[in-house]
């Protein structure tokens, strides 16, 4: 089983929503579409589902060209950011609704609904109506509806975005387990890099209608093909600075922060990407370099401290563990972990990491 997009393009009027895209999703995988709002995640999912037709290009499913095949005739299900359930059905009837249409006998419906409800901790609520449930339970009902019919393709469009923080964490933990033994392709759209990392599987980074990179989630995270992919997959935003290299001497163009490294690239000008957690108030790693800055904002979350500071013309973001109190305007010294730098050439391609 596989889902393949071949040169899929979507235009609405003169606007291009999806630039020609090639993507192949294999069976039994969870695939995260990661990108900010308007990156094209939803459009791409609707094209995959058959809710929307591509302007050009083809969609192949299991070696069959399904471009233009209606959504009803495909075996897919979708969960939305909003909690979509039939308002005057009970939870049981809601979960059973996709089965009833297929004409399965009621004993089997009962059994399958019961199983899914248990998986999603809804067993006690089967007789309630959606309005009587919490947001988390409503979304669980919607998930149960998507799971109950054994779809080949399950699309989850930011399913956790409208949930409270606690409920979101809880459900996010359960999600990968729900799909573990299923013979299907799962596509999960999110704006949050953390979601992608926690769900694992594969990730496609998206920006303005382009799939920037697709691969194993951890690979995309630690070895982004290019600067764009790295930026999409970094929250808080990645620090980017111009550097020059000669021999094993590296130097920020903007000021005189210097370090030595045996990274194997030609001499010349590069860009480096540094994730905020690799700039800390304390030394980390065997190879680190100091950077001085003036504190712009400091945000404490208890377990972490986010310090925004300026150095030269650039604004930097650092993320340290624990409470690191800094006052606004204060001069402070931070440490950058040289081993975690990502080096990009002038065309923004990754040339080396670490």
């Amino acid at each position, binding site marked *: 089983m596989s889902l393949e997009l071949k040169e899929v393009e979507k235009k609405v009027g003169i606007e291009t929503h999806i630039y020609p895209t090639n993507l192949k999703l294999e069976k039994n995988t969870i695939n995260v579409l990661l990108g900010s709002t308007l990156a094209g995640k939803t459009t791409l999912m*609707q094209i995959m*589902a058959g*809710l929307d037709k591509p302007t050009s290009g083809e969609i192949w499913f299991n070696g069959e060209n399904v471009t233009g095949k209606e*959504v*009803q005739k495909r075996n*897919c*299900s*979708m969960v*939305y*950011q*909003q909690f*979509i359930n*039939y*308002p*005057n*059905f009970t939870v049981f009837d809601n979960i059973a*609704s*996709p089965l009833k*249409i297929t004409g399965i006998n009621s004993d089997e419906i009962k059994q399958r609904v019961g199983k899914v409800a248990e998986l999603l901790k809804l067993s006690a609520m089967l007789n309630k*109506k959606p*309005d*009587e449930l919490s947001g988390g339970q409503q979304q669980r009902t919607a998930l149960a509806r998507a799971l109950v019919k054994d779809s080949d393709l399950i699309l989850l469009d930011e399913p956790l975005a409208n949930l409270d923080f606690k409920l979101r964490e809880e459900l996010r933990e359960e999600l990968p387990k729900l799909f573990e033994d299923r013979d299907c392709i799962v596509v999960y759209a999110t704006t949050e890099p953390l979601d992608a990392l926690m769900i694992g599987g594969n990730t496609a980074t998206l920006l303005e209608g382009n799939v920037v990179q697709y691969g194993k989630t951890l690979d995309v995270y630690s070895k982004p093909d290019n600067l764009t992919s790295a930026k999409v997959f970094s929250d808080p935003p990645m620090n980017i600075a111009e550097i020059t290299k000669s021999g094993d001497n590296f130097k920020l163009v903007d000021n005189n922060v210097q370090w030595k490294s045996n990274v194997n690239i030609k001499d010349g000008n590069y860009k480096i990407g540094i994730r905020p957690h690799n700039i800390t108030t304390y030394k980390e790693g065997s190879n680190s370099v100091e950077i001085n800055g003036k504190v712009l904002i400091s945000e404490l979350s208890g377990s972490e401290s986010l310090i925004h500071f300026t150095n030269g013309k650039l604004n930097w973001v650092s993320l340290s563990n624990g409470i690191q109190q800094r006052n606004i305007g204060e001069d402070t010294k931070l440490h950058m972990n040289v081993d975690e730098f990502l080096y990009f050439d002038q065309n923004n391609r990754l040339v080396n990491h670490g």
Partner: protein
Amino acid sequence: MNKTFNQKAWYFVIPVFVLVAFNAAVPLMTVVNYSFQETFGSNVFAWEGTRWFKEILHSERFHASLGRQAIFTFIILLIQLPLGIFIALTMPKKGWGVPVCLILMSMPLLIPWNVVGAMWNIFALPDIGFLGNSLNSIGFDYNFTQQSGDAWFTTILMDVWHWTSLVVLLSYAGLNSIQPAYYQAAEIDGASRWDIFRYIELPKMKKVLTLAILLRFMDSFMIYTEPFVLTGGGPGNATNFLSLDLVKMALGQFDLGPAAAMSLIYFLIVLLICWIFYSLMMKNEART
């Protein structure tokens, strides 16, 4: 506990008392007062007890106009609700068609009621009116001033023309508040157009439709101006609805006592039905 007792706050309530007294309590109590007395003019009143109420409740004239009223309200609800929902469903959801449709729909609602009556009166005249003349020229024997069936037909048509828009606008607002994801989810489930209407649109429109029914019930049950101008209750008593009959009794015959009793009964009927409706509505609300 050391509390200072100060009753000055009552002064702030006085304006409300005065207002409510003059626009509701005093007129209503005057009517209640009339309903228990007989008068022969010159401000001379005699106590009659519940005589007028008994008379009205047993009067065939009242039964007849109440019956006409009920049938009229029932028919226009039966036509306007489905028609309004249907029009709302077919209205465009985006583009230039939206403002055009909304303006067209609002027009009948903006016309003064007596103008609506006068307009339809002329429109339906069998000799010179466009509707009346056209119907006659294609072979119908149509004359709303002389045949009761035609009078009913014209009155109902006028009310449908005048008020269906209200149902349309309310339904349209209800439909527009349904997120597109509902339709997509139903499409994925393989639901038919009827399923979508029955299981998504109708439940989602429940609140606005309840409101529409309540408004249309009250307005149509108390209809006066338009039939007064259009038919004047005629021919004979054919379209003599409750409020028309009431005004005839009170101002035409100057039977103040019976008219007062009748208006109280009328008021209680409307109040009762609205209360039943409202509590049913609230019961559903509390449950969900």
